[in-house]
């Protein structure tokens, strides 16, 4: 697999569904930091999974005026059910058709598995990747790296 897009790279733009009838483009969020959190799949069987954790930490992300976007290859209906079940207060993007296309742009798609790595990107307000990280398989990366990257953004 090629290496994950590093800091300093312009973040590839994309437009994906957030709900069955709504799409979101990365460039619409220009002007504020964006946290892009790729994860393998909805419904991972543990409490305190990655998305549930970020949901609890949202207020800390918002202190930096940052927008959090979760992204996986699951479809919009699956995301809707997952978000409702876990009470998520941030958008989940469906990287569904063509499957994993955005993950491939960011070089975090796992060929053979058919889903993405657990990969994090902090994108600055000008649309440049400021920090990126891939967590080892099976290890939830937590939120400390994201918060540190947000802190290190130029004011």
């Amino acid at each position, binding site marked *: 697999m090629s290496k994950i897009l590093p800091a300093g790279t312009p973040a590839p733009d994309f437009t994906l569904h957030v709900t069955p009838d709504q799409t979101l483009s990365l460039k619409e969020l220009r002007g504020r930091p964006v946290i892009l959190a790729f994860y393998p799949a909805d419904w991972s069987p543990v*409490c305190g999974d*990655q998305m549930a954790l970020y949901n609890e930490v949202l207020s*800390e992300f918002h202190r930096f005026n940052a927008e959090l976007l979760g992204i996986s290859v699951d479809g919009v209906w699956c995301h809707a059910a997952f978000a409702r079940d876990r009470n998520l207060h941030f958008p989940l993007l469906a990287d569904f058709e063509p499957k994993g296309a955005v993950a491939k742009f960011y070089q975090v798609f796992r060929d053979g598995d058919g889903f993405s790595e657990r990969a994090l990107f902090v994108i600055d307000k000008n649309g440049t990747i400021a920090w990126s990280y891939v967590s080892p398989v099976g*290890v*939830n990366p*937590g*939120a*400390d790296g994201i918060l540190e990257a947000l802190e290190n953004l130029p004011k």
Partner: protein
Amino acid sequence: MAKLKVPVGPADHAQGPADAPVTLVEYGDYECPHCGYAHPIVKALQKKFGNQLRFVFRNFPLREIHPNAEAAAETAEFAATHDKFWEMHDLIYENQQDLSDELLSDLAKRLKLDARELARALETGEFAERVQKDFSGGVRSGVNGTPTFFINGQRHDADFELDTLGRAISEAAV
């Protein structure tokens, strides 16, 4: 590898000697079934390692998925101000499947604490800041779910079965 950013200090709830060669810190949620599973494992480790081990518990309630977790954490903090943190901690985990406001009130009574005072503290959020402080410190340290353990300041990324944790503690003690 994630490291504990907030050192263990006098504000922490700790069992075991401060100069024990190994300090085990748990970030836990009283409503999380995995933490309930870990509770007797920690007890067994304390028994096994005796004075070699100091155990510290910090709050990490996942409030959006566990509606009773915050109240439970605040109840344990309330008990702590009456020197009954660990009694309350144990009682909550032992009765985890019945967790509710009524249960917390009953447990307070069982420990001869004033249930009305507890109700007031929960209503005014007297201990909310304390719980939040634990939570924020945990996030900074890379807590990625519950329970998350740190052994001598290093996050323990393997499972928390008795053998696995015991081995990790033995290794840290050397």
